[in-house]
């Protein structure tokens, strides 16, 4: 394999690049998890949010490479990856059989299971935790479906406040192109077909993604995401992310 062009070259034996991140205080959005002391969480939680096709996984893969090159241990989490309910959630998506509140709580269970069994232990051990989406996607999906914001905020009061949240904003038109390039078809759920916005999947996709974006922008003021222009080249975006994360590691 050719050496990757995207990571900065590291001379063999050069250990100057390995720095220990400065500790910064952590907190939960609400009550958090019983018996967990946020003071003991020395790692960093970095969240990348964005629609399907916004380039999240590409960016995360490169960040992992960069982190490891810099001597940091990493762990990756994402939605629908818990031991407890991921399989059932996948089946629930196949047949649209659960009502809104039920599905919403099912996703919250999935999140909590990963929070307690992956995120918190990794942070305790000083890892860099990269989350491919977090509570914001879950909240935004529910808000678009008319769920109560106060209810959602209470529910996700268990979540840890990340050290950085990047929202990859890609225009719906561009998203369509990328989804076709990736999977030749639009996904039922990513098109919000359950909302019945239109019987035409293409129209529905554009409308639904537009609604999600609106909610993300609204939540931005509360949760302070960094909005990243996702319409640019992969490398350009990654450089911006790395620069911002470097500041986080310095405790700025």
């Amino acid at each position, binding site marked *: 394999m050719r050496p990757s062009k995207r990571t900065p070259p590291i001379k063999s034996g050069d250990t100057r690049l390995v720095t220990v991140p400065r500790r910064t205080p952590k907190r939960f959005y609400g009550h958090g998890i019983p018996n967990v002391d946020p003071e003991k969480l020395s790692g960093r939680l970095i969240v990348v949010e964005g629609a399907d096709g916004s380039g999240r996984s590409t960016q995360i893969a490169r960040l992992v490479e960069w982190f490891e090159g810099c001597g940091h241990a990493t762990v990756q989490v994402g939605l629908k990856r818990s031991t407890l309910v991921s399989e059932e959630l996948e089946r629930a998506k196949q047949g649209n059989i*659960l*009502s809104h509140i039920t599905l919403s*709580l099912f996703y919250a269970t999935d999140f909590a299971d990963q929070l307690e069994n992956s995120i918190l232990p990794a942070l305790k051990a000083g890892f860099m935790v990269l989350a491919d989406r977090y509570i914001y996607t879950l909240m935004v999906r529910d808000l678009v479906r008319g769920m109560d914001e*106060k*209810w959602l905020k209470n529910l996700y009061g268990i979540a840890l406040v990340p050290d950085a949240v990047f929202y990859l904003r890609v225009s719906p038109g561009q998203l369509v192109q990328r989804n076709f390039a990736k999977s030749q078809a639009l996904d039922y759920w990513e098109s919000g077909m359950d909302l019945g916005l239109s019987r035409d999947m293409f129209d529905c996709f554009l409308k639904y993604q537009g609604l999600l974006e609106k909610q993300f922008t609204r939540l931005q003021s509360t949760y302070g995401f960094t909005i990243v222009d996702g319409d640019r080249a992969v490398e350009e975006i990654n450089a911006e992310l790395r620069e911002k994360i470097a500041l986080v590691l310095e405790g700025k």
Partner: protein
Amino acid sequence: MKTFADLNFPGRLIAVEGLDGSGKSTQIYLLKRWLELQGLKVFFSEWNSSELVKSATSKGKNRQLLTPTTFSLIHATDFADRYERQLVPLMRAGYVVLCDRYIFTAFARDTVRGCQPDWVRGIYGFAALPDLIFFFNAQLEVSLQRILDGRPELKYFEAGMDLRLSVDPYESFRIFQGRMLEQYLAMSTEFDFLVIDANQPVEAQQSVVRQLVSAKIDLSKYVLPKS
């Protein structure tokens, strides 16, 4: 929080709460028979979890994967499923619905497990309050004896073993149930529990229950249409 009546549902919901062994299931069964024999539109909501939620819950329990938070959330998911799929449609259709346990069991259980009470209550905020809540208040020892006399095989979470109260499941169950009772009693006034003295004979309790139901619900509105 509002009751189904406050929210103008045509149906009425009656919930029974109490410890295991308090005799509440016997009482709700007798109430159901009484209402049925009068030819009323009554529905006893026996809990059938949908297959998906059940599969996740039993995995979590059998493999002891649950923490207080996920225990609470998976049961809330299960309740939401029951609520949206069964209870709301029945209430819209104008039934007298009888529920063996409602959200108060979750409030008590999750709080004993260490979840924040207002977090748990917030999660169940989507559910309307029952129109009547009977609480069967039996002495702790009496309830415990009814369950433990049969030397049942207590399940891990049922006995509260996850709380590390005791290594002996029976002892753990005793302590756990004692804490549940404290929680129920603390909620009693706030949610207007109709407290029934469960140390009384079955018939005496049922007589009180029936009187209260006819006093508080206009049963003539729930007569089954003649076919």
